[in-house]
C-alpha cells in the first residue's frame, strides 16, 4: 500500500460522486420526458445537494449526528473497494463479502441516525428499509453463492474479467439467465426504485428515514444516496454484465443499466412492504434456487 493507492481511492470516491450525480440529473430529465414534461437542468442534482449544504442545520442529539457521519463514511469507504473497469485502489480486497460487510456499516449508520431523530415516521421508514433489505438480499446472495461455487472465487474483479473477451454471450446474465433476472430485480430493491420504494413513500410516511433531515444533514444523505447507488449498480454490472474492459465501456454500460431501472420505475406502482417481501420470497427466491440446482447438479452455465 503506497500513497498512490490512497490517492486513487480518494479520486474514486470523487469520480463516483460526480458521475452518478450527473447521471441522476440526466435521469430526472428522462423521467420528466416519460411524463411529457421538459424536466430540470441536467446539473440540477448538483444544485440541490450544494443548496442543502448551504443551509443551516440543527441537531437531534449525538446519535443523529454521529449516525449521519458514520453512514457517509461507511458508504464512501465501500466505494473505494469497488473495482471499476479492472482498476482498484487496493488490489485483492474486492471480495464480495468485504463489500457486503463494509456496506452494512453505512446502512446501519443510516438506520441509527434516522432512529436517533426520534420521529415515528423515521422509525417506520427504517423498519421498512431493513425489511426490504432482508427481502432482496436472500435471493441475491443465493445467486452470488452460485456464482462463487461455479468460478471458485469471490473476487468481484475476477468474476468480471472471467466474463470478458467473448462478446455479450460471455456475460453471466446470458449464461445464468434466471440468476441474471433475479439480480436485476434485486437491483430495483437495492436502489429503492418502484415497485420497492415503500420505505421512502413521501405522501404516505413523509419520506420515511429522511423525515427529520434538513440542511447539511440532508445534503449528506443525498451525497450518500448517490454513492450507494454507484456501489449497487457497479456490483450488478461487475457480477452479471461483464464489468467493463475500459473505463468508457464501463460508464456506457452503467448508464444504460441505471437508466433502464429508472424507466421501468417510472411506469410502476408501489408494493406494500408485505407484498414486496412475499414477492421476493416467492418469485426471485424460487428462480434463484432453480438456478443454483441447475448449476450444481446439471452443470449449466459453463
Amino acid at each position, binding site marked *: 500500500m503506497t500513497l498512490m493507492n490512497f490517492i486513487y481511492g480518494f479520486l474514486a470516491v470523487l469520480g463516483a460522486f460526480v458521475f452518478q450525480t450527473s447521471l441522476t440529473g440526466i435521469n*430526472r430529465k428522462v423521467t420528466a420526458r416519460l411524463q411529457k414534461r421538459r*424536466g430540470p437542468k441536467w446539473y*440540477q442534482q448538483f444544485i*440541490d445537494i*450544494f443548496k442543502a449544504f448551504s443551509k443551516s442545520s440543527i441537531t437531534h442529539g449525538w446519535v443523529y449526528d454521529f449516525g449521519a457521519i458514520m453512514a457517509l463514511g461507511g458508504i464512501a469507504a465501500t466505494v473505494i473497494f469497488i473495482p471499476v473497469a479492472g482498476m482498484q485502489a487496493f488490489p485483492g480486497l474486492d471480495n464480495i463479502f468485504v463489500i457486503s460487510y463494509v456496506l452494512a456499516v453505512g446502512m446501519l449508520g443510516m438506520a441509527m441516525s434516522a432512529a436517533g431523530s426520534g420521529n415515528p415516521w423515521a422509525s417506520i421508514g427504517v423498519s421498512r428499509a431493513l425489511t426490504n433489505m432482508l427481502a432482496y438480499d436472500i435471493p441475491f446472495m443465493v445467486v452470488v453463492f452460485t456464482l462463487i461455487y461455479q468460478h471458485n472465487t469471490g473476487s468481484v474483479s475476477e468474476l468480471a474479467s472471467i466474463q470478458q473477451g467473448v462478446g455479450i454471450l460471455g456475460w453471466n446474465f446470458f449464461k445464468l439467465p434466471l440468476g441474471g433476472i433475479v439480480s436485476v430485480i434485486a437491483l430495483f430493491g437495492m436502489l429503492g426504485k418502484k415497485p420497492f420504494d415503500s420505505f421512502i413513500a*413521501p405522501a404516505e410516511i413523509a*419520506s420515511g428515514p429522511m*423525515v427529520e433531515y*434538513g440542511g447539511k444533514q*440532508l445534503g449528506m444523505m443525498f451525497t450518500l444516496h448517490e454513492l450507494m447507488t454507484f456501489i449497487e449498480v457497479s456490483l450488478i454490472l461487475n457480477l452479471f454484465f461483464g464489468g467493463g474492459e475500459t473505463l468508457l465501456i464501463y460508464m456506457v454500460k452503467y448508464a444504460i443499466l441505471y437508466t433502464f431501472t429508472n424507466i421501468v420505475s417510472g411506469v410502476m406502482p408501489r408494493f406494500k412492504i408485505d407484498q414486496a417481501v412475499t414477492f421476493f420470497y416467492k418469485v426471485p427466491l424460487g428462480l434463484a434456487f432453480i438456478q443454483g440446482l441447475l448449476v450444481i447438479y446439471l452443470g449449466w452455465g459453463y
Partner: protein
Amino acid sequence: MHEVQKNDRSLWEVVGDYFRANSIWMKWYCTGCGAIEMPPTMTSRFDMEQLGMGPMATPRQADVLLITGYLSTKTLRRVIYSYEQMQDPKYVVGFGSCTLNGGIYYDSYATINQLDKYLPVDLYIAGCMPRPEAIMNSFGELIEMIKKGEAKGWKHYKENHEWYKANQMDSLGEVIIHDEFHE
C-alpha cells in the same frame, strides 16, 4: 419594526443564494382552496421542475412555505410550528387574496385577514385563485429576489421576533397543553 439592510452579503452568501434560487423545495399544507392550483403547476402542462422547484414531504427539508389560501386560526398555530421547524434561509409565499386582506372571508371570526402580521411573507400572489400562469410568473419573481438577496423575511422574523410573537399570541390566545413534555 425596522428595515433589514440590503446588499450586505458575503461572497459565500452570494454563491449560496445562487444555489438556493435554482433549487426551491416547497412545503404546502392544503390549508385553503389554492392548493388545487398546485397539481396543474407540477404536472406536464406547466412543469415547475424545469425551474428546479419541487414538493417536499416535511418542513425540515423545505425552503419555501406556501400558504395556499385562507388560514383559520386553528391552522395558523400549526403553520407557525412548521415555519419554525424549517432550516434557515427560508421563504414564505402567500397565495391568493385571502392571505393579503382576508378575501371573501374578510369578516369571518375563524380566519386571519393579513398573513404578514404573523409570518414574514416574502411574496404575495394576488388572485382568487391565482392560475398556474400567475404562479409560474411569481416564482420567476421569487427566484430573482433570492438571487439578488432581497428575500430576507427570515432575518426580519428573527429581528422582530417580539412583534410577531405578540401578534400571534393576540390571535391565538394562550393555550395550556397537557402532555408528557409540558408537565
